């Protein structure tokens, strides 16, 4: 149980770091979805089912949908454009 928790927290922190440092915008939004997923697992470990269900529905569902719509409106939705030129 402790090993599973350690792996989940390690993946979550790595994904949080890669949100800041990945040059492609689509990858950054995906990494923030991974952070939400790992957070849901940690809430299940903490025996908080209401919070886990809310985080799953909103973090992985509605939040990522809002960010994807934002990507499309801002013109970042392309896999080959290497990052944002105005970084």
């Amino acid at each position, binding site marked *: 149980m402790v090993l599973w928790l350690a792996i989940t927290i390690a993946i979550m922190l790595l994904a949080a770091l890669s949100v800041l440092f990945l040059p492609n915008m689509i990858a950054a939004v995906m990494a923030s979805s991974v952070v939400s997923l790992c957070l849901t697992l940690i809430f299940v470990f903490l025996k908080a089912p209401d919070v886990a269900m809310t985080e799953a529905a909103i973090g992985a569902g509605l939040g990522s949908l809002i960010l994807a719509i934002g990507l499309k*409106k801002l013109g970042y939705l392309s896999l080959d454009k290497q990052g944002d030129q105005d970084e």
Partner: protein
Amino acid sequence: MNRWSLANFSALIFALGLAVLLFAVSVQLPLANAPMLVGNSIIAQGVADTGAANLVTAVVLAYRGLDTLGELSILFAAAGVVGLLLTGAKAAQSPLPAGGFVVSSAVHLLTPLLFVVGFYIIFHGHLTPGGGFQGGVILAMAFFLPYLVDYKPLQQEHQRLTLIESVAGGSFIVIGLFSLFSGQAFLQPFLGHGAFGNLWSAGTLPLLYIAVGLKVGSELSSLLINLLHAEDE
């Protein structure tokens, strides 16, 4: 972040110092020993006070009902400002191409299932984990997914969603005012408790959660529709 300037280095040092301070705080706070001064009495008397099996529902609606009302107003303000700032939803054109075969068949299969699951989670909020917010988010997805597939006339849909949202929000406050007029505090649950574990139990809590779920669902979906049809393609 290709070029590391002095500002970035000082931000890194600040972040590391914050981490050290937080670590120093966490050493003095043992984790699994919450004092739970209020929580213990809520656990002991929650079922007797409200009749709900889910104590988080009892806290959200019965013990801290005014916080839920504040949260509904924050969501209303956010959705209202989004509708105010974004132009382009009033234009009666379809800015997006219609979805392909895979997306449209998946949406046609998923939308009734999403409605069923959303309403199930809302109705059983006082018995199992769930409630108005989770079910409302799922309902928002169910309202919004057909917009990804094909174009619908915008005016009637917007008016219908706004009508659902205002009726649901108003009924939340009206239910709270009923208990005020019957001699108790505002938003205090006042109908009978019913049998423990039944669907119709816990007084006004399911009714409040239905109002919250419908309001959150229609509000978030109209916010998403405004975002989707904004200009600057």
